């Protein structure tokens, strides 16, 4: 299999940047999962799709808008009515899912190339993200595992909280370099490491 090229190119500069004192406020990474797949349920079929996700990934998603889970190199969350993003570090998830989703239940759309996964973690992750998005990142309002759809200017973004101070962001690939640059810029005042 041909390896995917990162869209970040020259703006991915590993190392420490920004404010030096007090250690990095955040760590930025491109996680490069092998599979990013959208599973969309037709109305009334949400439970069936959640069961398919559970079978395929072992992630049993809680009910409710934006509910999700992340564990063991796999993650899934709801980001719109009936729609879920399922992420696997392994390739080939879309091919595995397509045969098991009946036509009347929903659809599978492979976005493994179309979305770029960026992880921001660290004590200042909420602070940095709050500069870019008009949503509440505080833990009670945005619990672990949960997903959100939002936008920074024209850059549509899906966000999953993967830990107490960690978030995975999924942005359109064509915007990834621009978004990464913006994210680095926003992280300067707290200091950031790129890994």
């Amino acid at each position, binding site marked *: *299999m*041909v*390896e*995917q*090229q*990162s*869209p970040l*190119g*020259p703006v991915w500069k590993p190392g420490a940047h*920004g*404010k*030096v004192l007090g250690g990095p406020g955040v760590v930025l990474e491109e996680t490069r999962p092998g599979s990013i797949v*959208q599973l*969309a349920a*037709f109305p009334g079929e949400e439970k069936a799709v959640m069961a398919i996700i559970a079978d395929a990934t072992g992630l049993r998603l809680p009910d409710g808008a934006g509910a999700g889970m992340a564990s063991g190199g796999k993650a899934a969350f709801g980001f719109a009515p009936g729609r879920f993003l399922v992420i696997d570090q392994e390739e080939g998830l879309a091919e595995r899912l397509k045969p098991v989703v009946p*036509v*009347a239940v*929903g*659809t599978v*759309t*492979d*976005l*493994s*190339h*179309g*979305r770029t996964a960026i992880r921001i973690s660290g004590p200042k992750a909420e602070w940095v993200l*709050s*500069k870019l*998005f*008009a*949503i*509440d990142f*505080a833990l009670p*309002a945005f619990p672990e595992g949960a997903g959100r759809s939002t936008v*920074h*200017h*024209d*850059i549509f973004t899906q966000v999953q909280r993967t830990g107490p101070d960690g978030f995975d962001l999924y942005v*359109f*690939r*064509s*915007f990834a*370099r*621009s*978004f990464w*640059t*913006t994210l680095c*810029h*926003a*992280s*300067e*005042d*707290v*200091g950031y490491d790129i890994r």
Partner: protein
Amino acid sequence: MSARRAASGGLIDRDKTVRFTFDGRPYVGFAGDTLASALLANGVTLFGRSFKYHRPRGLLSAGIDEPNALVTVLKGDVREPNIPATLLEIHDGLAVVSQNRFPSLAFDVGAASQLAGKLISAGFYYKTFMGPAIGPLRGTRFWMFCEHFIRRSAGLGRAGFAKDPARYERMNAFCDVLVVGSGPAGLMAAKAAAERGGRVILAELDQRFGGSANWSDETIDGMPASSWADRMIDELSERGNVRLLNRATVWGYYDGNTLAALERVTDHKSVGGVGEPRHRHWVIRAGAVVLATGALERPLVFPGNDRPGVMLASAAERFANEFGVLPGEKSVLFTNNDGAYRAAAALAKAGSVIAAIVDVRAQISPAAKGLAAEAGAELLAGHAIAGTEGGRAVSAVKVQPFDATNGKPFGDTRTIQADSLLVSGGWSPAIHLASQAGGKPQWSAELQAFLLPDATQNWIGAGAVTGRFSTSEALAQGHAAGIAATGGPEMPVSLPDVAAHGLDLRPAPVLEVRGEGKAFVDFQHDVTADDVRLAHREGFVSVEHLKRYTTLGMATDQGKTSNIPGLAIMAEAQGVAIEDVGTTRFRPPFAPVSIGALAAERFGDVKPERLTPMHDWHVEHGATMYAAGLWFRPMIYGEPGETIEQAYVREARAVRSAVGIVDVSTLGKIAVQGPDAATFLDRVYTNMFSTLPVGKARYGLMLREDGIAFDDGTTWRLDENEFLMTTTTANAGKVMQHLEYFLDVVWPDLKVHLTSVTDEWAGAAVAGPKSRDVLAACVTGTAVDNAALPFMGIVRGEIAGAPVMICRLSFSGEMAFEVYCGAGHGTHVWNALMQAGKPLGMVPYGLEALGTLRIEKGHVTGAEIDGRTTARDLHLDWMLSKKKPFIGSMMMDREGLAAPERISLVGLVSLDNRPLNGGAHIVEELDELSPHDSIGHVTATCYSPALGRYIGLALVKGGKARHGTRAFISDPLRKRFGPVEIVSHHFYDPEGSRMHG
């Protein structure tokens, strides 16, 4: 130590000296000083020249309400004008200049306009310059002539031209309780809300938290009020649920309990920290808001009330107590309420001589009398200031007995020598935010002020903003507000003890002393009491009209000090009560906001942009990139010495004669999936898609509901229930929204999912007679011959190990293939194609060549599908199915849309062998000087290598009927007029044999 700096006291840090310059002269102050306090301590009283009359002006206030002392801060080549000296904190290296003076602050030529002062009254400019006709300069032209000179003499600071290198940022914040103002009320509210577990933001516009606690000489819980405030802040900062924001002005109250604040992050520092923005624009969504914004003291209106040295009494008290600075060595106070007495005592304590307290009231409270005695001041009850004397500063004041029944002084004038005159016209609650939010202010005759309106959103007032001016009331109200804001029941608590003077801040209803000489209402816009009366005489009855005619309250201070005195004079002139005059609604911003903060980070290298997967390859191979919306696309791959035209002609020729490759990744791509996908497409496209076999593509056209053409593109059937729709680059977002709207709102019963997959696929179009040879050389896993891959056929295979999907379709008119692969494989596949094409002479081509090829073929794009044209206008009526209804099908046949005189698509050939201009009009008559009767316009132009002519596409009345006729293109702006022949838009290979072959 200057005479103006008290020997001790104040919250400044006397161990840290700070050096700065004002008008080029070096000064020294202390850390914690504002520019105002530092200059005052250095004996500077003249801060600026006024807006219209160039009168000398000094400090009126000590805070955000300052109308006079506006200065320009210089940072390198960047100048920021109109900063209140009272809000500007000094730091080492700060360079400030005064404004609106020439050649210098002390000797200003423009001050001569004072001599003509009578002439420059309200509406002066309108009356003088808008109407008259003087020679050839009539009406507006005369104004435009004069404006040049007026602009030089009137106005505030001058903006610079240098680019502002500072960074700004936006911060989105959420909280249960936002407390605006950190005086005693705000501190209590924040504490109560925080103790109940609420997420709290406490915003303070000044450098120090504490508000009035910093300058009152009261004690709270047995300690100086400022120490009590410090202790409260220490406690709050220990909590995880409280965010403390100082230097943060909450300036806007919007729907949904959303408030905007501007935090001045680095303005007070010589050097900002790494990555720190200069200003941070906070957008705060609050569950509840505690408005603890306090009150603003008002000046009194009397002749000569703008002379430097005339200052608000509370400002003087603040300079003395917070900064250890005295406004003068010998002061007179002039008041209509008890508040000034506290200031007198504070100043006396700090070392100033208090010559007299002049009070318009005949009866003075015992508490006030006691303070007057404490200050050693002579008390002149029932008196008023009738005027001031002095040059650029007050040297003496004139006092006369005052007749409260007619507002005029009478009897013997006494002159008292003094270098400062401290005035108090009572207090106006700072209700600006509530007014912005739509609340209607309530007039209180008792306080001569507008009170906080009833809540229109979830806010609670606490402290002086409610019209309760004592600190003990502020503490109680603040505590209650903090509890109410977190939604809990009242809980008994022992409130801190306050030792205060027990003064009554209710003013006598006197805001003006009438007499000879200019008496200013709006200091910043130079509006006098006479201007207000003149406006009344000229028939301006509504307060809204008064405001616009006199510009009262329209300066950068938004009338913080002038609003009530102006209304009082208007009411008096009309013979009505102030509440019947009404007030204007306050609008955001409460205080000026830097544009940079609002624009935040949407410029420079953080402006969003979209790059295709092959972007770096294009740049490395010499492409000139072109911004198409947010996308960057290669325009040409120029070789050294080539012009743009030479480059695209070379590229287009290569496509026609051999083969070329172009990046088409920017085309909008939408996955249309589900059992009803084909049905859905039949409804949104004008032509049929349910009949399209799997593995084939079809060109489709969409109309809007009104029957106008909307977008076109090919849609590929990948499976029974799965289509890949392509749209034009520019319309990708709009088409997606259009389709989503119909699925969600109109046909929710259809089982279809739409997903943007624009970014999933990299696309390369390989076009030219040798294009199939290129594919044959690199594609594996499928044949690409005519049988396997007929026109509009789709196959899947691999190129250099990467999966690809290939569709044979043509935009150029040549045999062509669109090769799609995963975006992350885009460069890999592109390189493999380039490698395979090298022996065949393949060249990469850009947008210019792409455009040339399509113009030669007469294909339409957004230039022709411009939101006004119909399918018929574009000769696409063959695509309008008669077998089914579709979006726009009922509206497209309306009379006006089928009229024969509509413009329709034609080709143009330049007959003078010069380029045609896009956007040029087409006229029938040879009249270059006065072109008339346009019959249409040019939509696209190029040099056609295939025809060897300059050609274009155009929309022309009558369309086809004009084929073979001549006309002229007319483009007077770009000075182009020339003959053209109108021809068919199919310039090249009209039968399409090349792409089908």
